[in-house]
């Protein structure tokens, strides 16, 4: 008896040029100069990084820009033990980082950790750990211009 044919492989190959808009464009330009730019809501004074064209809560346009230090505190942390198709090679560490002066969380990789033994991860990093951005040598205006963060 022959094996039944149950599926056929289909491939989608689409290249998007996803628009950045003026606000994110300015942020990405800042990264090429090793600057982390944030902006601020004129009503609630929250500081956004990634910046936002408007405050979703107050529903007004943001106005003021400011530069934040490339340092902050880990608020949440995890290690992906399993990856996904087309994604980074596991294991890799990701943190929700509150940069000094920011009201929001920036998600990014954390480098320089020993991920060999799951039981030693939480001794190395956790909420409250201070981290600093490590810049990529070649910067082209994308979030990976920050290669990763590392413990200070």
């Amino acid at each position, binding site marked *: 008896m022959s094996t039944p044919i149950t599926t056929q492989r289909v491939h989608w190959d689409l290249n998007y040029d996803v628009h950045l808009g003026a606000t994110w464009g300015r942020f990405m330009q800042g990264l090429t100069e090793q600057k982390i730019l944030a902006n601020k809501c004129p009503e609630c004074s929250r500081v956004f990084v990634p910046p936002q064209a408007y405050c979703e809560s107050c529903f007004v346009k943001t106005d003021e820009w400011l530069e934040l230090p490339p340092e902050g505190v880990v608020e949440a942390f*995890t*290690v992906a*033990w*399993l990856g*996904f*198709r087309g994604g980074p090679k596991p294991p890799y560490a990701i943190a929700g980082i509150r940069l000094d002066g920011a009201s929001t969380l920036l998600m990014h990789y954390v480098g320089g950790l020993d991920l060999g033994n799951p039981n030693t991860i939480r001794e190395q990093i956790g909420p409250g750990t201070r981290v600093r951005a490590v810049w990529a040598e070649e910067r082209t205006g994308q979030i990976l211009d920050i290669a990763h963060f590392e413990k200070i």
Partner: protein
Amino acid sequence: MSGLNPSAAAQDPIPVLGLAATPLVPESDAVLDELVFDAVSRALREAGIRKQEIGLSVTASLDIYDGRSISSGLTNAASGGYLAQSYRIEGDAGQAIVHAAQTIAAGDADLTLAVGVYNPEVSAPDRRAFLQQISNHGFEPHFDRPVGLSAETAFGLHTGYAVDSGALTEEQLAELAAAEISRGAGRPRAARTAVTSADVAASAPVNGVLRELMLPAEATGAIAVVLGSLGRSRRALHPRAVITGWGQATSDTTAGGQWLTDPAAAARRAGQEAYRRAGLTEPGEQIDAAELTTSTPALLAPTVDALGLAKGDTAINPSGGVASCFPGVANGALRLFEAVEWLEENGGQAVSHSTDLLTGPVAETATVLVVEGV
């Protein structure tokens, strides 16, 4: 003829006239529309209603899972929508059920149908890796996608946060997962067999402290629900329950961070609206059972609390919840199905809660339904 007599406190009682599912299996070989047709035709047959009588069909599916950029073009006819009123929502079936109920409440139709279908077009063995790739595509493309975010990572971040803040221990995570899986095991739609907390703790590490058996039990299939107006339902064959309240809400973005500190915020807002419509004032006292979409053990307590069910003796996830069976975007219909079957056995009032898990606890849309036994 039935003696439908829904609670007078309910603003718009909407009877459930039919409820049917295809077999829920790890991977179906069927074409998407065949699954939809199977569930819809069974639900209509159970309700004693012909396709031509349906005033509106709403399908819940997601193109990117379906491998078709307008998959509703394929499934529309199978939903009963051929040359009729129909639309599709990209999201969880709970939303489709809300839309179907709203249409009746608005007086736009006497009979409506909602169907959720989920059979991601991928084969084992790297099914998980494909689903997480799709999840990564669900995240914001400039900031979140490049740093490898996916639903699993967002759940891993939240669970780690909960453990680090002392809300619960890794042992408790394993115990909660084992209890849910084992409660569901042996039931008709269970996708997992009974396990101990040691089995959970020994299952494959997936993300942070989360292990395979702490995450939802993936299944595929379609589930359909037929709803009717109160007047039309009095002539129905066998009304199974009455939806007395519904609510929908969304949660915060990645950067907002509320998903870490208050992960059930959307459930809370959706619940408040559903309870208001149902005329419930003390949900903890009035709700007898709840079928929740608590995708990790760390989400159980926040969700139960957000829905006002922490005090009282509400049966939580009597079916084992999504730890026992999670059919993707059809999940909202399964949670209702389980709640209705529980009411048929025990009577009283129940709640079903669902979200799609495309981006984990980030930017979720939660749906809450209140259901009453007949």
